[in-house]
């Protein structure tokens, strides 16, 4: 029983930090998207949208390298895409954090489970799947 309650509170600390982490991720990504959106609209607002047919190469921002090189040119679309990246990485960071917290709790089974989930995501990041 004592062990139970101890675990409960330890988990609770972890959860409070996790909640903050998620919030910071969401707010910062939204701010970046907003700034990028203003720049994008300012330079494109009279343009005509063309999304009728899916064209993989259209935005030219489909890799992390392309996004970063666009950032250097202060390109609105690239900034939006960077904000989107931040949003995608928020839950992934959450998994990284959980792995560390399970490591501190010495729950090695869950360290392994967390690492497996991370490997799946890293494999997806390796860009061999898009086809």
């Amino acid at each position, binding site marked *: 029983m004592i062990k139970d309650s101890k675990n409960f509170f330890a988990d609770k600390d972890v959860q409070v930090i996790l909640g903050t982490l998620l919030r910071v991720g969401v707010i910062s990504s939204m701010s970046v998207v907003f700034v990028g959106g203003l720049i994008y609209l300012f330079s494109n607002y*009279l343009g005509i949208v063309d999304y009728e047919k*899916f064209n993989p190469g259209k935005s030219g921002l489909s890799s992390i390298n392309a996004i970063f090189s666009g950032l250097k040119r202060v390109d609105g679309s690239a900034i939006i895409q960077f904000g989107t990246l931040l949003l995608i990485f928020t839950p992934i960071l959450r998994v990284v954090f959980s792995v560390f917290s399970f490591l501190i709790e010495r729950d090695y089974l869950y360290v392994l489970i967390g690492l497996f989930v991370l490997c799946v995501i890293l494999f997806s990041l390796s860009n061999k799947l898009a086809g």
Partner: protein
Amino acid sequence: MSVLLFTIIVLAGAFLAGLVGSLTGLGGGVIIIPLLTLGLGVDIHYAIGASIISVIATSSGSAAAYVKEGITNIRIGMFLEIATTVSAIIGAVVTVFIDPGYIAVIFGLILLFSAAMMVRKKIDRSDNDTSGKLALFLKLNGTYPTEDGVKKYAVHNVLGGFLMMFIAGIISGLLGIGSGALKVIAMDNIMRIPFKVSTTTSNFMMGVTAAASAIVYLHRGQIDPGIAMPVTIGVLVGATIGSKILVRTKTDKLKVVFAVVVTFLALQMIYNGLAGRL
């Protein structure tokens, strides 16, 4: 259509999607995909990419609020993420090879199912009976705070739940939605986890699952900044306001109205998909 007009329409639609989504518990994709494809003639592959972004946004946004209350079971979430991330990636890889018409039909069917799940009466099947060896081995059984103190619960049929989550992940990767309705089946009905824990844990997992397939979509060019921008901002603002209203509103009637709207959208998607117009 000009970029400015397109942005304003999508922004307004995404705001509504986020608002209604957080009030009824149905994800934003349910509105965003029909709005983009049926309403604005956007290719369904772009719509899927935009929708997955809205799933991550709402999941991370509301999970931030939920975890602080201490009812998310991180172990259940982590364990089931093995199934959902692998299958979400499979779904995201496969989706581009499937005819858009078929995707629309599958989407419509999932919408019909979600609408039915939303209005049905929920029965809490949770208990604290001895559960299987796997649940014990994985330390999945947990506690949650109630009005009369901390309550214990046991997790049942771990393997069945795991398989159901695998299917939910495939659908999520295929269509760019959170497939919350399927996750609820896995957690409430198969694993018999209490509502308070299952809702928040499912929401919590949704972010990681969606991130796994979002990366595939991003690499393929399905996430277009011109659509992602109004969707992200609209959904986040809508969902934030929605979760504030939620505390002091009864949503039963709204759910019925929304179920009718979703059913209509579902039939539209299926009809247009079969007619080859998407």
